[in-house]
C-alpha cells in the first residue's frame, strides 16, 4: 500500500512538473528552432554537401553557445519586465538606443525578405507561384496574431517548430552509414582542403547560430508572456530544450546533403531540394517543406521582434494579448513589414543576392553592439540584483561574446571581400 501511494505521489508530481513546463515552455524553443531559418538551412545544406559529416561536431558546440547567450535574455526580461530595445534606451541613453533601434529595424526587414525568398522558392518546387505563397503566408501569419492571445500564438508556433523536425525522418530515408557519421562527425577534427573556404563555412555556421533578432525576440517574448523571477529556471530549461532541437535539426540537415549530395556546390536549400527530387521524391519533398517551415518560423519571430521593439520604444501598446483596436500601431507595423518583404520578393529582377549580402554585413554591425549591451546589463547589480551574472557566467559569456564578435566580423569581411581568407 505504501509503495502504491508513493508511486501515485511520484506520478502526480511528475505530471505536475510536465504540465508546468508545458505552460512555461515557448519562447526558448521557438527562438532556438526559428534560428534554423531559411538562411540557416541553406548554410547547413551547403556545409553537408561540401564537408560531408566532418563538421557535425562543430554544430554540437554551437548549441551551448546559443544557450548561454539566450539565457541572459531570459533573466533580463523576467527581472526588468522590459524588452531589449527599451532596456538599451533606458540604460545607455538615446544615442545607443536609436542606433540599436534603426539597425534592428533594417536588419530584420532585410532578413524578413530572405525568409520570404526561402518560402517562395520552397513552394515553387511544388508549382505554387510566388504571389500565391506570399498571400498564403501573410494570411496565415495574420490569423496567428489576430486571435488575440499570446498563449495561442505560442502554441501554434510550437506546432511549426515540430514541423522543423522533418529533417530527422528525411535523414533516415537516405540511409546514411551510422558508423561513418559517428566516426567522422563526432570526433573533433578539421577536414582537409582550402583553409580559407573551411574558415568561411565555420563562420557561416556561427553566424546562423546567434542573430540580433533572437536576443530582442526572446526578451520581449518573456515579457509579453508575463514571466517572473520564479519562472527563470523553467525558462532556462525551455531554452536548453530549444538549443538541443536547433542542433539536432542542423545535424540531420547536414546528414541528408552529406549522404546524397556530397561534392555538389549548393547555393541554396531550394536548389538542394530540387536536386533531391529525382533521387528520392520524398526526401526532396521533406527538404522543401522543411525550408518553407524554416522561413515561416523565422518570419513570425523577426516581424514580431521589430513590432515589439517599436512598441517598447514609442510607449505604444505592444502585446499579442491585445486586440487590434487596443494596439493599432503594433499590428500595423507587423503587417507592413510582411507586406514590404512580400512585395520585394515579387519584384522581377530584384537584387535578392545583394540583399542577402547586405543582411550579413548589417547584422554583423548590430551583433557586437547587442551582445555588449546584453552583457553589460547582466552585470548591472542595480538592475539585476541577485540575478546578475556570477563569475563563472561572466567567464563563459565574455569568452562567447568576444569569440562571436571576432568570427562574425571575419564573416562579414569575407562577405564583402570574398578573396580575403583564400
Amino acid at each position: 500500500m505504501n509503495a502504491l501511494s508513493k508511486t501515485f505521489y511520484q506520478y502526480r508530481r511528475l505530471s505536475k512538473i510536465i504540465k508546468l513546463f508545458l505552460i512555461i515552455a515557448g519562447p526558448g524553443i521557438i527562438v532556438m528552432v526559428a534560428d534554423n531559418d531559411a538562411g540557416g538551412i541553406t548554410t547547413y545544406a551547403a556545409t553537408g554537401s561540401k564537408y560531408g559529416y566532418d563538421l557535425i561536431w562543430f554544430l554540437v558546440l554551437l548549441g551551448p553557445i546559443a544557450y548561454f547567450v539566450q539565457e541572459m535574455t531570459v533573466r533580463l526580461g523576467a527581472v526588468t519586465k522590459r524588452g531589449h530595445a527599451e532596456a538599451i534606451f533606458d540604460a545607455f541613453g538615446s544615442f545607443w538606443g536609436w542606433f540599436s533601434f534603426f539597425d534592428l529595424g533594417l536588419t530584420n526587414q532585410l532578413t524578413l525578405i530572405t525568409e520570404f525568398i526561402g518560402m517562395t522558392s520552397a513552394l515553387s518546387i511544388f508549382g505554387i507561384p510566388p504571389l500565391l505563397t506570399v498571400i498564403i503566408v501573410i494570411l496565415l501569419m495574420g490569423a496567428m496574431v489576430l486571435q488575440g492571445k499570446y498563449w495561442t500564438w505560442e502554441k501554434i508556433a510550437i506546432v511549426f517548430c515540430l514541423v522543423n523536425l522533418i529533417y530527422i525522418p528525411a535523414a533516415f530515408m537516405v540511409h546514411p552509414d551510422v558508423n561513418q557519421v559517428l566516426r567522422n562527425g563526432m570526433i573533433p577534427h578539421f577536414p582537409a582542403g582550402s583553409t580559407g573556404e573551411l574558415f568561411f563555412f565555420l563562420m557561416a555556421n556561427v553566424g546562423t547560430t546567434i542573430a540580433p533578432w533572437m536576443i530582442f525576440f526572446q526578451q520581449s517574448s518573456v515579457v509579453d508572456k508575463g514571466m517572473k523571477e520564479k519562472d527563470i529556471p523553467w525558462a532556462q530549461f525551455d531554452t536548453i530544450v530549444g538549443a538541443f532541437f536547433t542542433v539536432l535539426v542542423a545535424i540531420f540537415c547536414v546528414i541528408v546533403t552529406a549522404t546524397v549530395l556530397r561534392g555538389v556546390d549548393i547555393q541554396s536549400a531550394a536548389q538542394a531540394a530540387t536536386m533531391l527530387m529525382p533521387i528520392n521524391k520524398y526526401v526532396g519533398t521533406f527538404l522543401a517543406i522543411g525550408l518553407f517551415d524554416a522561413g515561416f518560423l523565422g518570419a513570425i519571430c523577426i516581424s514580431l521582434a521589430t513590432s515589439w521593439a517599436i512598441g517598447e520604444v514609442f510607449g505604444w501598446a505592444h502585446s499579442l494579448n491585445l486586440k487590434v483596436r487596443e494596439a493599432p500601431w503594433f499590428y500595423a507595423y507587423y503587417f507592413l513589414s510582411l507586406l514590404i518583404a512580400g512585395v520585394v520578393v515579387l519584384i522581377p529582377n530584384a537584387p535578392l543576392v545583394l540583399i542577402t549580402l547586405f543582411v550579413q554585413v548589417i547584422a554583423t554591425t548590430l551583433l557586437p553592439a547587442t551582445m555588449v549591451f546584453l552583457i553589460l546589463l547582466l552585470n548591472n547589480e542595480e538592475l539585476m540584483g541577485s540575478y546578475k551574472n556570477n563569475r563563472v557566467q561572466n567567464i563563459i559569456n565574455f569568452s562567447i561574446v568576444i569569440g562571436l564578435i571576432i568570427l562574425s566580423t571575419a564573416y562579414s569581411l569575407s562577405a564583402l571581400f570574398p578573396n580575403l581568407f583564400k
Partner: protein
Amino acid sequence: MDENERDYNQSKGLLESIREINAKYRHPRIKMTRLVNISLWALRIYLIAMLLILFYKFATLVIH
C-alpha cells in the same frame, strides 16, 4: 505603463514622440564603471571601422 498613458502615446505625432523619447532617455542610467566605459569606447571604434570598410567597399564598387 497604464492604459491612459498608452492611449496618449498612440495618439501623439511621430516627431513629438521622438522628442519625448530623446528627453526621457537623455542621460544613460547605467553606472559608468570602467568596464562600461571601455566597452562603449571599443564599440564606437569597432562601428567606425566597420563603416569605413563599408564606404571603401562601395567606393571601389562605384570606381570599377
